[in-house]
């Protein structure tokens, strides 16, 4: 390659001289620099064919545009503002799993959405106020949980729903989820909290013939929904884990941030992420693993936190966080336990199972079907790979409601075609959509697991 030093441009013999180092095209930087990721996109458009919004909405340009193309346009100078269509992305994150090139699409979307909301969206607009309220669901849920019966009545009071739509753009089509009369943490405290769990776990280990000092300790991230709306899921988790001899702690925690990412409220998300990371990092240091029963919560902690924030201990927490059933599959002989189990009561049923997008992205979309495949008295049928369409707060917005239902149509059809009239999913908002679209009762795999293995 000695001729490569000649001054004449010769495309056949590129300049490979001493001074040329093609690897260092970009300066080293500590900022989140999404340009190299954008350059990994070779425009195959497979992400677009996986996007549930693009499938039903002709006006949505799709994940390839929202991510790599937009970022490439923006990197050069500040003249390019983020396109408002980024608010039509529901943050299902399916595009991540689709990309053969490993482009961090959802990270680009979250970052673009954050920038759009902080720089383009008026803080006085109804849209901003509404989105902020929806994103900070935990706050209103906390308030409502103080007066659950009143909150339940008020939230679903017809005129109030009408007003919510007219004033705030929250769709009047949906019924608000019920608030439990006792939150999970109130129940947990009544059970004796961590000390009570330690005792029950030791008894279980003794019964199972395991060493009493076995290192079986988990920190539970229950999230907002299991706390305020479906504590039965959290209780099932506690009983199942204690059955296997795990000591549980429930540290102080905020929202996982999922609804905030999806609404571009990155400051709100950072506030809660800092709380969560600081509270779980110490436990992880002590040898605890973190588990979550909601797949969007585990997704946020595992992937979105380290992609978006730089918080002390964040990578350790992410690397030691697991979805609750997945964790048991790794550490226990669940298959063996289930082979001997049978399920009585109302959970002996045919379930129409829907895999949430955020479970899909963690490789967990087939877990429930595989796990319960041979369980006596129970059938779990996968209703296919369509998205439920609600995507957390997305389907609650009046202007998105129709899109949300169009996306969900395929799932509703498949649920109705499946045997049985009970749904199953790991995601609380998918469950909401499943109930809304079909009228089915929807359960969490942990509830079935509890019925099967906890005698």
């Amino acid at each position, binding site marked *: 390659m000695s001729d490569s030093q000649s001054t004449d441009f010769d495309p056949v013999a590129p300049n490979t001289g001493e001074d040329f180092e093609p690897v260092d095209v970009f300066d080293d930087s500590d900022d989140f620099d999404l340009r190299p990721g954008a350059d990994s996109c070779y425009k195959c458009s497979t992400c677009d064919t996986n996007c549930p919004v693009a*499938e039903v909405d002709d006006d949505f340009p799709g994940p390839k545009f929202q991510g790599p193309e937009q970022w490439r346009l923006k990197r050069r100078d500040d003249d390019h503002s983020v396109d408002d269509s980024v608010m039509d992305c529901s943050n299902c994150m399916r595009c991540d*799993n689709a990309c053969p090139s490993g482009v961090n699409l959802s990270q680009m979307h979250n970052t673009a959405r954050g920038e759009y909301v902080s720089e383009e969206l008026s803080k006085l607009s109804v849209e901003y106020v509404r989105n902020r309220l929806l994103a900070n669901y935990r706050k209103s849920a906390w308030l409502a949980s103080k007066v659950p019966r009143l909150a339940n009545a008020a939230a679903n009071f017809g005129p109030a729903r009408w007003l919510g739509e007219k004033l705030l753009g929250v769709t009047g089509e949906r019924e608000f989820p019920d608030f439990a009369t006792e939150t999970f943490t109130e129940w947990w405290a009544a059970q004796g909290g961590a000390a009570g769990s330690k005792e029950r776990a030791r008894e279980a280990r003794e019964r199972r013939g395991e060493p009493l000092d076995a290192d079986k300790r988990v920190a539970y991230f229950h999230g907002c929904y299991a706390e305020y709306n479906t504590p039965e899921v959290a209780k099932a988790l506690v009983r199942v884990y204690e059955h296997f001899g795990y000591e549980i702690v429930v540290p102080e925690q905020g929202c996982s941030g999922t609804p905030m990412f999806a609404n571009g409220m990155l400051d709100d998300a950072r506030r809660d992420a800092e709380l969560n990371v600081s509270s779980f990092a110490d436990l992880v240091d002590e040898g605890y693993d973190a588990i979550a029963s909601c797949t969007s919560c585990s997704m946020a902690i595992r992937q979105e936190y380290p992609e978006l924030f730089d918080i002390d201990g964040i990578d350790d927490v992410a690397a030691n966080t697991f979805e609750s059933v997945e964790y048991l599959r790794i550490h226990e002989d669940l298959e063996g336990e289930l082979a001997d189990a049978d399920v009585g009561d109302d959970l002996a049923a045919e379930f129409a199972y829907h895999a949430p997008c955020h479970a899909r992205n963690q490789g967990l979309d087939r877990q429930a079907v*595989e796990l319960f495949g041979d369980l006596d008295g129970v059938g779990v049928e996968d209703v296919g790979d369509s998205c439920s369409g609600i995507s957390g707060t997305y389907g609650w917005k009046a202007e998105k409601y129709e899109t949300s239902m169009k996306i969900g149509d395929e799932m509703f059809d498949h649920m109705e075609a499946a045997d049985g009239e009970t749904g199953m999913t790991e995601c609380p908002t998918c469950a909401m959509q499943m109930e809304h679209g079909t009228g089915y009762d929807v359960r969490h795999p942990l509830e079935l697991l509890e019925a099967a293995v906890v005698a």
Partner: protein
Amino acid sequence: MAIDSDVLVIGGGLAGLTSALAAARAGADTRLVSYKQSTLRHASGLVDVLGYTPDGDGPLVDPFDAIPDLPEAHPYRTVGTEMVREALALFDDAVPHYRGSHTDANALVPTHGGTVKPTARYPVGASAGVASDDRDALLVGFEALADFDAPQAAAHLDAAGVPFDVRGATIRFPGDLRADAKITRYAKLLDADSRVPVDGRDQSVRAALAERVRAELDGEERVGFPAILGDDDAAGVREALADALGAAVFEVPMGPPSLPGLRLEDALFDALDSAGASIETGNPVVDYDGGDRIERVSVEKNGARIPYAADQYVLATGGLVGKGVESDRDAVYEPIFDCHVAHAGDRYDWFEDDAFGDHAFPQFGVATDDSLRPEEADGSTEFPNLRAAGSVLGGYDFAAEKSGGGVSLATGYAAGRAAAEETR
């Protein structure tokens, strides 16, 4: 503990899926893990066995005839002709919507660029388009779908000397979809026969499309469309259009993302489900534990290492494009097990300056023994319980030979079956 199975297949392309299917049907508890969604989504959907010899002779009429003369290092020579036939039989059984099994001869299928590709198996949707058929053809392209230029493809086919008259026409797809509408958008509209606005009133999309094509039709007995004719109900869409046009209808395979590839993925996933195999996608295998034998591998989920243990493993992670073989400025390597990949020490010997020259890099991959177990540089076995299949294998150039699908099928089948036998 770990997530256990008898056979763990790493990779979700044609080789991985075939290998998992072969192992599961042989009775092994089988699990397939794939970093991303199946790469079949990017594939044309055509399954080639051998279109050209390594010297460039061809198109070959009978690929089986040519296999014994391939170089000794070629994967077909490792598994033998009979294994290629058995693998195709497995494929034909698992994927009923494919054609080509009636003959050993290659079919000549037109591509979206207007070339003619020698291929062994093709979707039934493409079958009315084969170039050996002498019926005149009209190719129809859509204004907004830039990936298929029908008049140009027709001119190319004509120049290639096909034995029929072929013409191309470009029309607007009814409903005026956005300029960069996704292929799945077209497919879903046609699947559901949705109503779309045409000249101010709503019409059935199939009927409206047929009407626009009929205006262009000039006695041709068959009409080719880009491969967007439905996803769940592709057969129904073709039939409806054929009825309305009074002509046979076929699809021309397209580049990625590809509906024929998606349909093939669906068929193989269904076959795997029926065979009782487990499938997981979304996270990469990054490392392994073990000394002489592989004890378990780690799947990385955003920093967490999830252990997967098996008795036998199949490596079907792809080649340089699929990232099953990687390179940096110093070396070419296989990233998970660090299996030996032969390559010149000087990286300037990895390629030729001429774009279409005799490059070394397309043949980079692992070398194996007769049982497809990767070998170290000195010819010893890397691991007794690891087999390799598909593009991660070296010694062949699928792009030049048009042999990618067949090698994946044959080596996937052989590796999966051998792995299952070892677990008995």
